[in-house]
């Protein structure tokens, strides 16, 4: 087997708890992380709601999976593209989102932000740059 590294993009367009899509996407990302591919996540439309900080699901009786996003860096998933227009439309700013960081092993394990805010046009370029696009 040749070691071909492909670019995988996981596209998140749904809010976190109304459907199972968001949680399933995260499961697939974690499973896929074992295959040493070039992985990115995209958050647009209602998908940006997945990253809000302060999620408290106790009273709703749901599993709060939002802390898992902060663990992605340990699986070398370090590129979380978030669309600016989707934030704007929903009255959100970067401050409303979790602070998600990873340790850069090529830079003395310095902590760096995983979230990359991009415009819709830049998001289109990210999508067009992939080998495989998986939607949730």
């Amino acid at each position, binding site marked *: 087997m040749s070691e071909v590294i492909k670019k995988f993009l996981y*596209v998140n*367009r749904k809010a976190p708890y109304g459907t199972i*899509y968001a949680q399933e996407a995260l499961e697939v990302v974690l499973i896929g992380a074992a295959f040493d591919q070039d992985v990115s996540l995209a958050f*647009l*439309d209602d998908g940006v709601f997945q990253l809000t900080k302060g999620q408290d699901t106790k009273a709703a009786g749901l599993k709060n999976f939002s802390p898992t996003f902060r663990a992605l860096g340990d699986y070398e998933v370090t590129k979380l593209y978030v669309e600016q227009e989707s934030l704007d439309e929903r009255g959100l700013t970067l401050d409303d989102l979790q602070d998600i960081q990873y340790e850069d092993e090529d830079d003395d394990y310095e902590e760096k932000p995983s979230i990359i805010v991009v415009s*819709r046009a830049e*998001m*289109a*370029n990210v*999508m*067009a740059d*992939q*080998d*495989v*696009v998986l*939607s*949730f």
Partner: protein
Amino acid sequence: MATLHTVNKSPFQNQTLISCLGHAKAGDSVLMIEDGVYGAMQGNAMSEVVAGMGANVKLFVLGADIAARGIDAGRVAKGIASVDYEEFVDMAASHDRVQNWL
């Protein structure tokens, strides 16, 4: 380096088709399938938006899903080509990637 986008939701139900058209690059193909085929009809509240936002992409609709919903082929908007399942497979193979908008 073109992408085949598929859309399977009605544009009257949610923003999926609009989001797809807002992210598709010039020269990409957008294929409306399942309930997505309602976005291919002419003379409804979405027709002008689809035509405008889709001006730089190639628009297609899956004929089987049009027929299944009782939509006459004549109701498909001008400039939107109807394809069958074999052509769908050929399109998936001839593009660099497939992006499904769910």
